[in-house]
């Protein structure tokens, strides 16, 4: 996999499980990583972890991803300090908590769409000028296997992820002339802050038993999907979703 030396990467929600794994891997490939999260302590500890291991260079960014003007202000500060951002991983998210349709109130619906869709939309807007000026960029969005498969619950979460699929396809078309690719990964259930809250340890273990592999992925295995899209060799891959949901034992395909 090619070197990312000289590049600046912004990873939203990188204080969490998957985001911190992406951050470590991208820093290890030589990019400067901006570790964004709403949780300052979480962002700081991921930065320290990268710096301590001398595994690359990193700095924190703290703001609510739903606050578009804060995101723009923080990004321009970071660009001043480090240079144009050429890699953006939209990863910040919250769980749909297996909520049933009847129980999802307007506040929960709006929070879900604001964090996932509005958050990704305006994070991209805050970096796109820089990517266009440099003439390259890699944007990787995070959806979920649930956007494709649906589920018996959490339809606000699943719908928000479906919106990001649409966004990914639209922007891939729009940004292709500028050397910018836009793709998405669709992880299946991976033990993380979010999935522990939703399923608990027992629920996670039960989920593992349903899968052909008999186990859940590690965050690093999900990160491998992100790293594929960042590789120089993947320059022509755009508008695609890498579905990393594992087949279930009963599935035919």
């Amino acid at each position: 996999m090619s070197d990312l030396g000289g590049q600046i990467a912004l990873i939203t929600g990188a204080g969490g499980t998957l985001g911190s794994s992406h951050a470590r891997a991208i820093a290890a490939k030589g990019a400067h990583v901006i570790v964004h999260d709403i949780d300052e302590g979480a962002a700081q500890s991921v930065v320290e972890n990268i710096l301590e291991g001398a595994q690359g260079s990193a700095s924190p960014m703290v703001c609510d991803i739903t606050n578009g003007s804060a995101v723009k202000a923080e990004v321009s500060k970071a660009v001043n300090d480090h240079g144009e951002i050429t890699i953006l991983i939209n990863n910040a998210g919250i769980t749909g908590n297996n909520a049933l349709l009847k129980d999802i109130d307007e506040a929960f619906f709006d929070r879900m769409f604001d964090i996932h869709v509005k958050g990704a939309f305006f994070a991209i807007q805050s970096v796109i000028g820089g990517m266009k000026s440099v003439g390259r960029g890699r944007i990787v969005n995070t959806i979920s296997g649930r956007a494709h498969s649906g589920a018996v619950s959490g339809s606000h979460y699943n719908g928000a992820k479906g919106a990001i699929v649409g966004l990914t396809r639209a922007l891939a078309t729009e940004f292709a002339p500028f050397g910018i690719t836009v793709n998405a990964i669709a992880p299946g259930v991976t033990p993380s802050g979010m999935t522990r809250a939703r399923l608990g340890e027992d629920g996670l273990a039960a989920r593992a038993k349903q899968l052909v592999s008999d186990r859940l992925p590690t965050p690093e295995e999900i990160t491998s999907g992100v790293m594929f899209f960042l590789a120089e060799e993947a320059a022509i891959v755009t508008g695609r979703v890498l579905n990393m949901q594992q087949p279930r034992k009963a599935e035919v395909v």
Partner: protein
Amino acid sequence: MTSVFITDADKPMGKAIAKRLQSEGYEVFTHPANGDAASLKEAIKTAGAIALLINNAEPVFERLVFEEIDEITFANMMNGVARMAFFAVQAVHPVMTKNGGGKIINIASSAPVRGMAGGAHFTAAKGSLYSFTRSWAQELAPDNIRVNLVAADVTTGTAAEDGGSETPLGRPVKIDDIVETVAFLAGEGGDMISGQEIIVDGGFTRVGF
């Protein structure tokens, strides 16, 4: 009399669907695409025995370079499409359950499947409908409710706008083509179809996307 609730039925597509369903004996109720969940729920309450919900709401759409889509334009589109559909389904769910079942048809576009420069907000909003459809089909099946999606490439986000007025079938898609597909799903032909997407585009989306 059975009711059909069609969001945003005052525009050409909604009007044509309404007219067809009226001719089949439905009483038509509607609500504008303004994202106001409270008044939408109220309108659904007064509509009575809704057997069919058509999520047709689509705010006026203007193609914009991505950087020029501001927060208000983005919010209007997301609220008018995704929020309207979500809270319409939430409100009709108990009505349909009480009446032994029903059908929901989400009107989308092929844009989330084939991509669309200058339509990031529109494509995101319509993209939510694909995943909503797949989810609600599962969640609401035990209540005998079918949920499907019809991608209508007639007005906004059309193949025609992207140089595809020549669809593989040789003519643009017409509103009547959508009306027929909706009527099919609403009728007995749609009784065992749920969680599906029908893209009515004259074959355009299959060409190289």
